[in-house]
């Protein structure tokens, strides 16, 4: 039964647009899937390989700007940004990896955080190239309806899921987890930790960059404040994985669903809507205390808690 679950989920997702959902609902679902992609990408590096990045906006932003710049400078369709971003972000990943991966633990996290910010400031100031804070506007929308965007991001998500699953079940996966658990032990067991950390980072970066290139096409407008955002991209990415479940296949997707819904809901609340960052912070603290392995990772714990409740109900 469990073996068929991914196929059932895929079938449901493939048929979802025929349910006649409103444009707004489709928008929310597209965002959820996009965030699931970023979450899965982050999870490969942060969850499995143990290298916690606070700067995934660096890859999202460069992916987004790859699509934006080929459109604004070369007049090519921004959709070419998808394949091109793979190349650009892979190179970026190697460079950032070279700089940051010589650091361990919190120092790596801080270095990546700095990288994201450096790229944001760079994008704001390279006005001839990026049009600075004016941003890049894609004037022609490819489609009016959401359905094609939906299928494109769904395809990217399925691809990301398969890539992550394939990697984790292979030699690379064993090596990533070994590095996460103990870098010195891994190194002394013949694992070239620098090389494999770089591989994890580059794959993670490329998938994130793909989501960024999609974002440009989908939203039709990007500026550095949005696509290189520290809290709205880098931190939210970590939250999604923490909430859903670190180092689980489905955690990022579950986390993305919950976080996008929560964000929309909280923003719509009167007065406290503007404080959604604060509420996210509180949520994160609660998750760390009660579900340190996330919703998917601690699912048995949740089920048990709910089961207990039910038993109590029947006795009273």
């Amino acid at each position, binding site marked *: 039964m469990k073996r068929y679950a991914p196929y059932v989920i895929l079938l449901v997702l493939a048929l979802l647009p025929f349910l006649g959902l409103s444009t707004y609902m489709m928008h929310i679902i597209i965002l959820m899937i996009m965030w699931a992609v970023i979450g899965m990408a982050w999870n490969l590096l942060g969850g499995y390989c143990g290298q916690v990045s606070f700067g995934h906006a660096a890859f999202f932003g460069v992916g987004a700007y790859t699509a934006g710049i080929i459109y604004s400078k070369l007049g090519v369709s921004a959709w070419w940004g998808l394949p091109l971003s793979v190349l650009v972000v892979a190179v970026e990943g190697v460079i950032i990896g070279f700089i940051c991966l010589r650091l361990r633990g919190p120092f790596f996290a801080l270095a990546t955080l700095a990288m994201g910010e450096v790229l944001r400031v760079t994008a704001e100031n390279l006005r001839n190239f990026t049009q600075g804070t004016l941003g890049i506007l894609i004037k022609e929308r490819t489609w009016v309806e959401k359905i094609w965007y939906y299928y494109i991001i769904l395809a990217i998500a399925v691809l990301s899921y398969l890539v992550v699953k394939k990697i984790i079940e292979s030699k690379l996966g064993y090596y990533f987890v070994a590095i996460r658990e*103990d870098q010195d*032990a891994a190194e002394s067991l*013949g694992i070239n930790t620098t090389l494999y950390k770089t591989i994890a980072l580059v794959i993670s970066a490329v998938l994130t960059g793909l989501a960024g290139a999609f974002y440009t096409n989908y939203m039709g407008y990007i500026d550095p404040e949005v696509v290189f955002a520290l809290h709205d991209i880098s931190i939210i990415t970590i939250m999604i994985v923490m909430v859903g479940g670190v180092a689980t296949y489905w955690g990022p997707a579950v986390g993305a669903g919950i976080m996008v819904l929560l964000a929309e809901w909280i923003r719509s609340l009167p007065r406290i809507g503007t404080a959604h960052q604060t509420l996210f912070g509180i949520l994160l603290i609660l998750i760390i205390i009660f579900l340190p392995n996330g919703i998917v990772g601690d699912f048995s714990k949740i089920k048990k808690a709910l089961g207990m409740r039910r038993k109590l109900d029947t006795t009273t």
Partner: protein
Amino acid sequence: MTPLLEIKNVSRFFGGLAAVMDVSFQVNQGEIVGLIGPNGAGKTTLFNVINGFYKPSKGDVFFKGKRISGLKPHQICRLGIARTFQVVKPLQRMTVLDNVVASAYLRAKSKKEAVSKAIDILHFTDLYEERDKLSKGLPLGMRKRLEIARALATEPEMLLLDESFAGLNPAELDRSIEIIKKIRESGITILIIEHHMKVIMSISDRIVVLNYGEKIAEGTPEEVGNNPLVIEAYLGEAASA
């Protein structure tokens, strides 16, 4: 015949402190060589130099006639030197089997090969029953054996064992000694750090003694056991007088 491992005038300084000072010795193919000395004598530092975690401040390490000092630990492991850690470093959130599979991948071409090799080694080290447990929850004796299993999975020619017997109860001790003897029979050369005198005296072919970073004696267990310098290092001057 070139020795399997040759340590030549190796020194390692930490700031002004000489943790290892001008140490030279050789380990020949098929031997078990014990490395002993009081706490802080520089034994583990010497292991870290051989294994590539530290570069020697002076001197060189040769393996099969090839200079290995300056190489990274993973390169040295690939050449055929595996080690265990005194403070065990299990890959905690991996099962016992996966711990060993991760190291077996060094020389295995497929997952199937890595897993079957790992299972063989778990049988060899008496850990097969525990294969599905997370290594986090294992008792110390088993974690020490898991260290050995993981090192063996890289198919080394030489094994560096750092206090694999410390903290074991008598039953576990006998089991581990059996395993060490079996490892030697399979043709792997062993350099072993040990505080447990009974063990080291019974299994070593030769013993090297370090004190304050310097080599003070080398020889067969009997020679070392009767060496006044060694007795002094362990028991103090009064006892030797």
